C-alpha cells in the first residue's frame, strides 16, 4: 500500500540569527502559516510552530523522545557538552525516579513552607528600592528586580553557600545557548565552560549544601533509595541550570508587560490576587523558553506528512503561545485572558517541574510591587539579550511611582 504524502513546505530561515533573536515574531508567523510542519534546510531539521502540533509533539514522548538531546545536537551521533540531564535529556524508564523525586520536592504543597518567607523577601526588596528615594524611582528592572529577586530567594532555597553565586547566570546562559547550533553565542561562552561547569558540579555535593533546602531533600531521597547516590548531584544540577535564568526572564517578561500596558497594571493593583495569572500570561506572551528539540523515533506522521526517523524536530513554544488558531488576539498581553493551557512550561511528561517555584516567585514579587507602586512605566526602550533558547532582556529601564503611604 502506498500513501500519498504532502510535500513538506520549506522555509529558508535561521531561528538562531541575531536578527531573528532580536525579534522572532515575524519568522514565527511565517513558520505557522507555512504549514503544520516545516522543513528548515539550513539545519536539515523539521519545525512545528502551531499550537496544536507543538502541544501534540510535547506530550508524545513515545515518538518524540528526549534522550537524544533536546537541542540541535543528536546525542546518538554527537557527544554532549556535559553529562546529559537525568530529567530533561532522559526518557522513561530512566526519567521516572528523578522526576518523581523532584515533583514532590518542588510541588505546591512542599512550597507552602516558603510562601510567607518569599512574600516577605519581596516586600523587603521592593521597600529597599523605594524607601527614601523620592517621588519617582528610575531603575533597571532586570538587575534591580528580575535578577535580584530570584538570586535572593532561589539559591537559599536550594541550599547553596553564599560564595560564587555570580556563576549561576552565566552558566545558565551558556547551557541555554548550547541547545542551539554552535554559533557565535556558543563560542562566546566556550572559554568559561570548564570553570563554570566545575563550580556548578562542586555545588551539588551533599556537604556543600545546607541541610534544609531542595538540595538536601534530593540527597535524602537517595538515602531512602528512591534515587541512587550517583543520581543525586546531577538532579541538584538540574535546579541550578534550569531554575535561575528562566525565572529571571519570566519576571522580566511580566515587568515589561505591566510597564507597557497601564490597563493591566491597573487591574493588578485593584486585584492583586491575579498576580499568579499575570505571571503565566507573561510566560505565554514572551515565552522565556522559546524552543526545545526532540528526535523522531521512527517515521512520525504529522499533518499529512512524515518526519523521517532520527531527524531533529524543533518545537517553537513561543510561536504556539501566539498562534491565532488557538488564542484570541495573541500578541496582546491581557490580564483578563485565561492563559491556561499555554506551552511556555512545556506539556506532558517533561513539563517544567519547577513551574510552581516560578509562579511563587512571580506572585511574591508582583504582590509586593502592586502594594507599593502606583505607576510603572518604561523609562526607555528595553534592550534584548540574545540567547539561542531564551527570549531575554539585557536591560529594562523602568520608572516607578511609589504609592502614597
Amino acid at each position, binding site marked *: 500500500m502506498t500513501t500519498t504524502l504532502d510535500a513538506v513546505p520549506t522555509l529558508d530561515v535561521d531561528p538562531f540569527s541575531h536578527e531573528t533573536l532580536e525579534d522572532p515574531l515575524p519568522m514565527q508567523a511565517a513558520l505557522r502559516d507555512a504549514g503544520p510542519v516545516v522543513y528548515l534546510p539550513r539545519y536539515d531539521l523539521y519545525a512545528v510552530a502551531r499550537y496544536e502540533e507543538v502541544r501534540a509533539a510535547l506530550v508524545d514522548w513515545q515518538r518524540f523522545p528526549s534522550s537524544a538531546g533536546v537541542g540541535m545536537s543528536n546525542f546518538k551521533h554527537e557527544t554532549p557538552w556535559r553529562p546529559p540531564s537525568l530529567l530533561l535529556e532522559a526518557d522513561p524508564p530512566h526519567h521516572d525516579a528523578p522526576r518523581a523525586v523532584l515533583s514532590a520536592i518542588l510541588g505546591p504543597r512542599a512550597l507552602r513552607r516558603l510562601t510567607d518567607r518569599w512574600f516577605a523577601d519581596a516586600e523587603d526588596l521592593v521597600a529597599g528600592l523605594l524607601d527614601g528615594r523620592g517621588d519617582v524611582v528610575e531603575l533597571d528592572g532586570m538587575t534591580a528586580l528580575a535578577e535580584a529577586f530570584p538570586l535572593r530567594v532561589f539559591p537559599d532555597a536550594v541550599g547553596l553557600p553564599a560564595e560564587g553565586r555570580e556563576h549561576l547566570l552565566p552558566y545558565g546562559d551558556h547551557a541555554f545557548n548550547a541547545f542551539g547550533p554552535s554559533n557565535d553565542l556558543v563560542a562566546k561562552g566556550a572559554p568559561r565552560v570548564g570553570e563554570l561547569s566545575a563550580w556548578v558540579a562542586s555545588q551539588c555535593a551533599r556537604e556543600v549544601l545546607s541541610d534544609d533546602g531542595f538540595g538536601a531533600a534530593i540527597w535524602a531521597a537517595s538515602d531512602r533509595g528512591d534515587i541512587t547516590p550517583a543520581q543525586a548531584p546531577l538532579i541538584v544540577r538540574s535546579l541550578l541550570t534550569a531554575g535561575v535564568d528562566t525565572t529571571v526572564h519570566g519576571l522580566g517578561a511580566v515587568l515589561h508587560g505591566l510597564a507597557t500596558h497601564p490597563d493591566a497594571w491597573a487591574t493588578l493593583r485593584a486585584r492583586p490576587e491575579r498576580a499568579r495569572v499575570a505571571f503565566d500570561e507573561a510566560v505565554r506572551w514572551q515565552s522565556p523558553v522559546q524552543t526545545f528539540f526532540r528526535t523522531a523515533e521512527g517515521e512520525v506522521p504529522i499533518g499529512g506528512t512524515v518526519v523521517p526517523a532520527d531527524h531533529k524536530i524543533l518545537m517553537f513554544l513561543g510561536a504556539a503561545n501566539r498562534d491565532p488558531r488557538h488564542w484570541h488576539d495573541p500578541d496582546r498581553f491581557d490580564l483578563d485572558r485565561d492563559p491556561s493551557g*499555554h506551552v511556555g512550561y512545556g506539556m506532558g*511528561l517533561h513539563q517544567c517541574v519547577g513551574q*510552581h517555584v516560578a509562579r511563587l516567585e512571580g506572585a511574591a514579587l508582583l504582590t509586593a510591587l502592586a502594594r507599593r507602586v502606583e505607576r510603572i512605566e518604561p523609562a526607555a526602550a528595553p534592550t534584548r539579550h540574545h540567547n539561542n533558547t531564551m527570549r531575554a532582556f539585557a536591560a529594562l529601564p523602568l520608572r516607578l511611582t511609589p504609592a502614597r503611604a
Partner: protein
Amino acid sequence: MDRLVVQGKTQVAEGVVALVLARPDGGRLPDWAPGAHVDLTLASGATRQYSLCGDRWDAHTYRVAVLREPDGRGGSAYVHDELAVGDTVGFGGPRNHFALVPSTRYLFVAGGIGITPLLPMVHQADLVGADWALLYGGRSRGTMAFADELARHGDRVTVHPQDEGGLLPLAAFVAGADEGTVVYCCGPAPLLAAIEDATAHRPRHLLRTERFVAADLGAPVRDEPFVLELARSGATVTVGPELSVLEAARRAGATALSSCEQGTCGTCETPVLAGVPDHRDSILADHERAAGDCLFPCVSRSCTDRLVLDL
C-alpha cells in the same frame, strides 16, 4: 466525568479477567509508570483500585486484570459478571505508591493477582538491563494469570503453584540478595508478612511492598449533579456529569489557572472550604486525600450535594 470504555475483556486465568480500557474518543491516556494503579468507578458508585499491567509505550489503552473476590462487596463480581465490551467506567489517577526505584538488581515476588503491578516492572527491569528474578506463587497453575507472557524470560521467572510445590521458598529466593538488591513484593497479607520476615535483616528501604487492601468506603462517588459554590464571589452553579468543576467554576466567573487538565501538573490546586471532594488526580497521597482540604478541579469532583471552593 472522565470515563473509559471497555475495549476488550478476556479471561486470562481461572477467576481472572483482563480489561482493555480506552478513551471514548481514542485520545491519549495519562502517562504512568510500573507500580501505578487507576481508580475505577463501577456501577453504584463503588470505586476500586486496579494496577496497570499493560504497555506504557501504548499511550491509548490501559490494561488491568481483575480477580473475582467471592467475599467482597461486589466490585470484582460486577466486573466479571456484568461489565461488557462497550460499557464505560469512571476513572481517576493513575497513582503510584509502588514505584520501581533505580537499581542494578531486583528480586520480584508475586502472590496470585499481585502479579499485576510486577508485570510491567519485570519488563522494565529487562529493558534497562538490570539483573532480576521473579518468584510467582498461586493456588494452582490454572489460577495464575500471565504465566504465558512471562515464559519468554526463561529461567529468570519461577512459577510456583502451591498445589504442586507448597509455599513459596522465600528464604532461599532472597538469600542471594546483595546490598544493592531491591525486593518488590505484592500479594496477600500472609505473603507480605512472610517476605518482611525473610528480609528483616536488610535495610527497610530495600523492600517495597503493595497490598491490595479494600479501602474503607468513603462517601460513594455520585453521578447526580451537585452544587458548586464559589466562596469569593458567592456564585453558585450546578455541576452535572458532563462538566468538570474547573469548567463550571469558569462559567460562574472564576479565574482558575490550569495547565494539564488531567490531574498531573498541580497547577489548578484549590482549597476546599466545605463538602467532601471526590479525588481523581494523580498527585495527592492517601493522607492528603483524606484531609479533604484541597482538590484539583480539572478532574476531581464532589461526593456531597454541595462543594464550596476558595475561588
